């Protein structure tokens, strides 16, 4: 049977993609950010997951407002990246695992999560940047299942709904008959706001509280509303629902392996977390 070995989270700011392309790892601005990732990679090297569930939001590459699914799951063996319009380089296609995707989709729908399944889905920086950060040698090698949650247009799914979706994903993985080690990646956040006269808003105290509580008290965080998240973490800080979905999928005893927090990367409080999930 498949087994969830742990969860990872990281901010997925597009500027990170630009900095990776320019190899700015030792640049004084970027160093405190990039220096956190080798510890996550060491953990991945030791655990050696066979597949990654990547929970992210599309930022207007694949989905437009004409049809905006609340939850969409990729069901393909390959996911292409494309030009997003503002200059981060296009990456080679990422690997999928259609069989695992369909198993998760069937299991979720059986549990009354009526999701949109996508055989052709472009993945943007929200998906790609975390893959580059955690698997820098070859981000396209590990098979993935992209799980896209709407954070573009309100109403967004509530934090609790995302946490419960994560739990259902966890149960789906654990019922997969193949002997796979699966890591669940939550992306985005932490606090940031790009739009309005409150642009540039970052909330360090709130982010640090979330980084702490998501380990052992995720339900407390899941009780917030989406608008609570907008107020406390900024308009785009509401992406924290993606972290809660990741946390929901970890069904066992959870241990924090590593975390990092750094302000600012671009306009964002950048957070990273490695959680181990013991059976």
């Amino acid at each position, binding site marked *: 049977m498949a087994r969830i070995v742990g969860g990872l989270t990281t901010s997925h700011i597009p500027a990170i993609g630009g900095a990776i392309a320019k190899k700015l790892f030792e640049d004084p601005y970027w160093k405190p950010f990039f220096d956190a990732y080798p510890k996550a990679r060491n953990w991945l090297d030791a655990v050696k997951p066979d597949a990654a569930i990547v929970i992210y939001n599309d930022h*207007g590459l694949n989905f437009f407002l004409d049809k905006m699914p609340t939850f969409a799951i990729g069901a393909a063996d390959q996911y292409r990246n494309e030009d997003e319009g503002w200059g981060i380089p296009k990456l080679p296609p990422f690997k999928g695992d259609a069989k695992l995707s369909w198993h998760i989709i069937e299991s979720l729908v059986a549990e009354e999560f009526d999701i949109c399944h996508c055989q052709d889905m472009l993945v943007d920086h929200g998906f790609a940047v975390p893959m580059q950060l955690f698997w820098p040698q070859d981000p396209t090698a590990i098979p993935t299942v992209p799980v896209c949650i709407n954070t573009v*247009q309100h109403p967004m799914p509530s934090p609790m709904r995302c946490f419960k979706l994560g739990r259902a994903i966890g149960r789906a993985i654990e019922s997969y008959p193949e002997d796979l080690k699966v890591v669940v990646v939550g992306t985005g956040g932490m606090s940031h706001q790009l*739009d309005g006269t*409150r642009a540039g808003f970052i909330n360090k105290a709130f982010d640090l509280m979330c980084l702490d509580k998501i380990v052992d008290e995720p339900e407390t965080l899941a009780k917030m509303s989406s608008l609570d998240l907008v107020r406390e973490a900024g308009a785009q800080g509401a992406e924290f629902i993606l972290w809660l979905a990741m946390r929901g999928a970890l069904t066992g005893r959870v241990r924090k392996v590593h975390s990092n927090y750094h302000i600012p990367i671009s306009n964002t409080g950048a957070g990273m977390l490695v959680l181990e999930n013991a059976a």
Partner: protein
Amino acid sequence: MLEVHRIPGTTIFDGTQAMRGYALNRMCFSFNQAENRKDFLKDEEAYMERYGLDEEQKAAVRARKVLDLIAAGGNIYYLAKFAGIFGLTVQDIGAQQTGMSVEAFRQMLRSQGD
């Protein structure tokens, strides 16, 4: 429609805004493709006409004013693609919306880490 709680300096992009800004956001969505970005720069007015922008949206596009674009229903994720045509970063548009210089805006971001 959502009951929108007042959050200072923040427009909640809900159904009302999504309907208001549909044409504008659809135009910005097209800027994912380099060819469309080129077409826009070649003849901005014709391009806006093709996507059916209204007068308020056209004026906001001509003025390159992010707050006006948001007021006309623009969604920041799609507007970022419009800003990208001019090589503007999220610090540039943050500075514009808050009335700061870009350096002052960057400093404001850094100071929140203290």
